[in-house]
């Protein structure tokens, strides 16, 4: 049985507690995340996703309900200990680059936690290798692409050897190439270390890679389940301002054109396979 790394119980948060007319950013939200899972929190802009990220690392505290992280209830006392066990990567690649060069930035969290110098050198190298940025040690941030900066940010989080990595819309400001780089990095990390990952995103292709999706709408949890389960509710997702993975969109369009397709396909390979099977039977 895996241990629970993060849980929210009936959490409600509003940015304007005195104003009743303002809809809470997060309302009565509950979920748990086990060690080793990859969870995607999905929702359109303004669905409350980013507020959840802030609740999970103690930048905000709920008005009611309980946040438990790493087996400890989130409070002023446990905050720093919890944070030292989780890494976070934010949306804007420029605004989280603290160091003057790549290696300085990766070392920042280590410095804060008082890691001795010799250990730091080892860990900085190791983390940069994990994100394939070891050739850029001395680069300054304005010479890096968005995708590279985000990978450095991931390395900075990994240097602390966290139990949990939270990606708060980490790919949304990147070009397709940068997005691919970051997603690929996460996949490889997962394969190599089995690190627990929570990615907050509106990119359904990214979400489709997760083990489990939690779909948010207006501060509520709308849907939860494996990508297959969630994407099966097709039109409901579109109503929420989201989209379907490409293969599923194609499946729907083909059905509309009168092509008989039985399955709900997550990938192009599966879709083509079914077309081939039914076609060759004719």
């Amino acid at each position, binding site marked *: 049985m895996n241990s629970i790394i993060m849980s929210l119980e009936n959490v409600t948060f509003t940015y304007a507690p005195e104003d009743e007319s303002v809809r809470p950013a997060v309302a009565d939200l509950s979920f748990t995340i086990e060690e080793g899972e990859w969870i995607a929190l999905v929702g359109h802009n303004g669905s409350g996703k980013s507020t959840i990220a802030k609740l999970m690392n103690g930048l905000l505290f709920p008005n009611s309900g309980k946040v438990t992280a790493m087996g400890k209830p989130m409070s002023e006392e446990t905050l720093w200990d919890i944070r030292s066990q989780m890494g976070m990567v934010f949306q804007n690649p420029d605004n989280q680059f603290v160091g003057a060069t790549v290696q300085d930035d990766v070392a920042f969290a280590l410095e804060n936690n008082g890691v001795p110098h010799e250990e730091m050198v080892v860990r900085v190298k190791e983390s940069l290798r994990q994100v394939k940025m070891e050739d850029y040690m001395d680069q300054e941030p304005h010479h890096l692409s968005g995708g590279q900066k985000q990978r450095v940010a991931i390395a900075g989080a990994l240097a602390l050897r966290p139990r949990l990595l939270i990606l708060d819309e980490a790919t949304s*400001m990147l070009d397709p*190439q*940068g997005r691919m780089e970051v997603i690929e990095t996460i996949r490889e990390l997962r394969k190599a270390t089995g690190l627990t990952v929570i990615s907050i995103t509106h990119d359904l292709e990214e979400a489709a890679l997760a083990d489990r999706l939690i779909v948010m709408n207006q501060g509520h949890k709308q849907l939860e389940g494996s990508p297959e389960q969630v994407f099966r509710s097709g039109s409901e997702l579109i109503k929420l301002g989201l989209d379907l993975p490409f293969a599923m969109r*194609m499946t729907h369009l083909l059905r509309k054109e009168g*092509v008989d397709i039985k399955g709900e396909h997550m990938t192009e390979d599966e879709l*083509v396979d079914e077309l*081939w099977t039914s076609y060759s039977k004719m």
Partner: protein
Amino acid sequence: MDILLQDVGYSYAKDTPFEKRALHHVNLHIPSGSYTAIIGHTGSGKSTVLQHLNALLKPTEGTVMIGERKIEEGTKAKNLRDIRRQVGIVFQFPEQQLFDETVLKDIMFGPLNYGVPEEEASRRARELVQQLGLPEDVLEKSPFDLSGGQMRRVAIAGVLAMEPDVLVLDEPTAGLDPRGRREIMDLFYRLHVEKGLTTVLVTHSMEDAARYADQIAIMHGGKCVVTGDPVTIFSNEEQLHDYRLEPPRSVRLQRQFEEKMGIKLDAISLTEEALAKNIAQALQKGRDAE
């Protein structure tokens, strides 16, 4: 209004130790009324070309013809203002340009700078807010109180309010969620058709380029290496690959389908809808042949 780049070269920080060459001998013709997509991977010179289209940058070599105006290295900054009204640019993350107290004033900023009467400017602002699907009460709000998606729309309205003949779009949907992205791209296309605008779209999305454009230009290493219509450009996968680009997903799926089935579809599918139609037809044909 035609825009013509002839043998354009551009260097940043010319004649210094920090000189950086961004463009080499770029030739590009943007015919009046066309929808041109400029594609190319990051650092290929797309953004530099874009800034030449309304004389924000002047070429360090060659000439740019914007309508009747000729822009070259020594061209005086005077009278460029008029060009900038005719050629509107929506920059990447345009919400960064918002500054005024209210949305209304911010949208009116451009037109007022060009001497449009206050009443007319305000009428345009109201109309645009509606067209862009923003609630009417947004007009009197501060732009900084809006959500990210709304700010984007207000910024776009600020450019459209100048009623340009040419609309240049630099990744206008970056960072938006899927619904917002679709709505805004569809709106630009509608304007392109209804108002007969000349549209230039700089994008990373091959899907958008294939769906909307009638002319495509590929930038690579500071050069404009190919121009052509979408069918020709996206049929030539080898060429795309040379420039580190990929065909749109619908074309990729089409190729996958064709390989597996051992047949060729009649036409290249530039959009998902077209692909669905083409596959349905091919399967139907196969069935009829039985």
